[in-house]
C-alpha cells in the first residue's frame, strides 16, 4: 500500500514542519519582545518601531511559510 519512502516522508514532514514553526516562533518572539521593550522606552517612536517590527516578522514568518508550501507542493507524494 505505502512504500517505505512514503512512510518515511509521512513521518518526517510533520516533524520538519514543527521544527520550522518552532524556529519561526522563537524568532518572532524575540523580535516582538525587542519591539515591545523599545516601544515602552520610547512611546514617541511607536509607528516607526511597529513598521520595522512588521517587516522583520514578515521575513521570519516567510521561512515557516516556505516549510508549509513545501508540504502543499509535495504532499501528494504521501497519498
Amino acid at each position: 500500500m505505502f512504500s517505505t519512502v512514503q512512510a518515511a516522508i509521512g513521518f518526517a514532514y510533520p516533524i520538519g514542519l514543527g521544527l520550522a514553526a518552532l524556529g519561526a516562533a522563537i524568532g518572532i518572539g524575540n523580535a516582538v519582545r525587542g519591539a515591545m521593550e523599545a516601544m515602552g522606552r520610547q512611546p514617541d517612536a511607536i509607528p516607526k518601531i511597529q513598521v520595522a517590527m512588521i517587516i522583520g516578522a514578515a521575513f521570519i514568518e516567510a521561512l515557516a511559510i516556505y516549510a508549509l508550501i513545501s508540504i502543499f507542493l509535495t504532499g501528494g507524494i504521501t497519498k
Partner: protein
Amino acid sequence: MEPVHTPQTDQHSAASPTTPAELSHAEALQGDAAAHQGSEAHGGHGLVLGRHISHPPEPPHLIQIWYDMEQEGLIEQYMHDHPGGAKPEVIEQWLAVGEHGELKAKDGERPTAAQALHYGRLDKPLPIVDYLPWENHVYLGLAMVLLIAIVLAATGSFRRDRRMAMRKPSRGQLFIESLVGGIDDFAKGVLGEENGRKYLPFLGTLFCVILVSNLMGLIPGLKPPTASLVITGSLALCTFIVVQATAWARLGPVSYLYHLMGQPKDLIGWCLAPLFLVLEVISDFLAKPLSLALRLFGNMLGKDILFGAFIGMGISFVSAVSHLLNAPDFGAYIGVPLTIPFYALGLLLSAVQALVFALLSTIYIMLVLPHDHEHGHDDHHGHAHGDDHHGHVAPIHEPVPH
C-alpha cells in the same frame, strides 16, 4: 469556475422526472446506457483525466474508478473482464463514479461526507467541477469589480445628488477617505513627499486589490484568488517590474551596476564586488519576488486548508452522530460550524498579509531610490512630523535585510 455537467448527470439531477417528456428521455437514456453496457468502447474519449475534464464522460463509461486502481492492478483486471472496453483512467483520489453519475466509494459504498463534500452531495448526480486554469482570474476580476463598486459607492457616484457627497460625506466615504489618507501618509513617510505621491497609486492599488482578494476567501462560495501562485506571482512580478524600472530610471545604467555591486568605496569593497554582484542579483531578481509571491500564497492557501479541514471535521461529526442514531447521513447536508472562530483569524491574516505585501513593495522601491535624494526629503519630512503628531509612519532610515 463553471460547473460542467454531463448530459446524463443533468438528466438525473431531477431526482424524479416530473414531466412525461423528461421521463421518457431519461428512460431512453437509461436504455441507451444498458444497450451500450456490453460494448463499452464507443467513441474514443475516455473517462477523465486527472484534474482536467476535457470531455464530459458518457454513461457507459462511468464505471467505478478509483485512484488506487492503477496501483492495485484493478485497471488491468477491469480490462480483462471487459475486453475491448475503454480503458478507465484515474479521476480523483478517492472518487468513484457510478453508472448513473453518482458517487461511490471504493467498496461500492457511499463515500464519506468529507469525500462527497469535495464534489457535491451524497447520492446526488456528480457535479463535475472542472478546476479550470483561469478560475483564479475570474475571481480576481470579481475582486476588481467589487473594488470598483466600493470606490464608486464611496465617492457618491451612485447618489443622485453628487454634490451632497462633497458636503455631507457618508460613513463609507469617510472610511475610504481615511484609508486612502492612511496609505498616502504611509507612502510619503517611507518614500518621501514627492516620491510617495508618485508611487501612491501603485501601492494603494496593490494593497486594496490584495485586501479585497484575501477577504473574498471569507465569503462562502468564493475563493480568494490570492490562494493561487499564479496570481500572487503576477502581483510580485508587478512589484518587481516597478522596482527595476525605478532603479533604471533613477540610477541610470552605471549607477545601477554600482548599486548591484554593493556600492564599493575602497579597495576591499571593489574586491568583494563580484560576490556582492551575485548576491544582489539573486536577492533582487529571485529572492524578493519569490518571497513576496510565496508568502501571500502560502498564507492564503494555509488559511483555506485550515477552513476546509474544520468544515470537514464538522461534517464528519454530524455524519458520525447520524450513523450512531441510525439516521440518514445528515452530514451530507449540514455540519457543525467549527470554522466560526477562524473567521476572526482570517480577517486578521487577510489584512496583515495585504499590509505586508504593500509594505515590502514600498521598502523595495525605497531601497533602489537614490540615497542622498531620499535623505534630503526625509530630513525635511521628519522635522515636519516632529512638530505635529499625526501618528504618521515615520521614515525608515534603516536598510532592510535582504
